[in-house]
């Protein structure tokens, strides 16, 4: 009698499995509804005060090309002739030749304004979010270059794989109606 009550017949197993599947499905639906609701209210963003430009934004995004791009707060920039966000630490020459550029993708543009000032702009289509320019700009300059998640590209994963890998905890959820944390206080 005890053996019969403990053992599971095939019909019983299938019944239990069907109930379990239905319950799991209901749970999943509830989770998706909650997550979507949460996603609609918040998005992922990088806090530039915490970001250490480690390079993982370029390697860990689920997208083929990372949704993280370098952005430039022009009001903070020194417009330096020798910008170490643009140039390699040991440039061969102080011109825009590829061998002198810090960016592995050539995504930073340099335009002469007036002696001795140059303007630097980011080509987002080329930028992969590796943050080398951010490192150079922070170390030598005013830190006007910084990384931000671009929301015309980001798919707003529930669990951001870059956030999971970020060594400095720079990723956080921000309101979707103020999705950016630009340096200089603009949102």
């Amino acid at each position, binding site marked *: 009698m005890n*053996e019969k009550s*403990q*053992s*599971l*017949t*095939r019909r019983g*197993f299938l019944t239990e499995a069907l109930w379990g599947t239905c319950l799991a499905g209901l749970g999943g639906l509830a989770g998706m509804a909650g997550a979507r609701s949460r996603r609609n209210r918040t998005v992922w963003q990088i806090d*530039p*005060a*915490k*970001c*250490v*430009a*480690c*390079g*993982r934004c*370029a*390697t*860990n995004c689920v997208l083929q090309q990372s949704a993280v791009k370098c952005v430039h707060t022009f009001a903070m*920039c*020194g*417009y*330096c*002739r*020798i*910008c*170490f966000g643009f140039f390699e*630490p*040991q*440039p061969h020459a102080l011109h825009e030749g590829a061998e002198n550029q*810090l960016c*592995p993708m050539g995504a930073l543009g340099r335009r002469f304004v007036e*002696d*001795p000032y140059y303007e630097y702009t980011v080509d987002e289509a080329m930028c992969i979010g*590796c*943050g*080398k320019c951010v*490192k*150079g700009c*922070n*170390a*030598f*300059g*005013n*830190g006007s270059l910084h990384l931000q998640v671009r929301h015309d590209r980001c798919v707003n994963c529930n*669990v951001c*794989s870059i956030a*999971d*890998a*970020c*060594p*400095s905890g720079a990723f956080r959820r921000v309101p979707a109606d103020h999705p950016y944390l630009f340096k200089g206080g603009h949102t």
Partner: protein
Amino acid sequence: MPKGIMDNRIVAGIIVAAAVGAAILAVIRLDIFGRTEVPVQYQYKLDQIAEVDPNLILYSELPRQIETGFRQARGVAIDANGSVFVAGDSRISVFDLAGQRVKTIDVPAGPQCLALAEDGTIYVGTKDHVEVYDAAGQQAGVWPTVGPEAFVTSIALGKDDVFVADAGRRTVLRFDRQGKAMGRIGDKDPNRGTEGFVVPSPHFDLAMAPDGLLRVVNPGRHRIEAYTTDGQLEVSWGRFGSDVEGFTGCCNPVSLAMLPDGGFVTAEKGVVRVKVFGPDGRFVGVVAGPRQLIGSAGEVCQTVDQCQNSGFDVAADRQGRVYVLDTQRNIVRIFEKKSKPA
């Protein structure tokens, strides 16, 4: 057990094993500990330009360091008696030769820099004006604001003059000792052959040399310029370079101090190092390199705060000792020239 019956325990065991396997796979694939190695082409290393030949390091650090107690220290100066004056937060702290705090002078406006006169008068630069304190630490005067968008970063004293470096407007202002404006130095003027100061960040230093010429750092042009007190550019020296003799980065040096023999001490940010030059601008040697100052030659800084606070201030006493204000750790480090072997 009858045919077609499955034991509960086996089913539970299969489910648990599958769950554990999925969890292990998720941990490995997601790399939640962030240990994925970043490809070398995305790494920013400064080893090649930051390493200093040990034979060039001419100074050794004294064991005693002065803990300033500031949340943010900004400037250091040494008086004729060897007392160390440190400006930071909303006050000036004075330390004796043993490193003990002996006096505190409140400066509510927030001191950025200071200069010490022979009679003990203290000229304190705040963001947009100069305040004067007597030897007892009592406020003796507040000068008018130097102008909109001003950012005072350094003060130097001439025989009868007070020179104020304004990084915000990229100019040097000349006052008499009573605060009367006497003129400006270094503005762009083709007639005088001056190109103007290039000051991309709030690091703009100057010092009065024993020869009577005012030395002003032009950080965006990587050189030190010598002016007469009425603004005539006499000579300049310094160059951009990734080697130890040059000034690297976008705008260096950030600080300048005079040695008793007329030589110069400079401090740079980015590649954080303190160097010594002769009176003629010839490179002499290194006081301390990145390894001595921040513990690393490859990784110069991590967070934005660390990076933006790597512009150390320097001063020198009458014995030629070099004082380095470490604005990351808010301490004063003292370096003495190594004695030559017999």
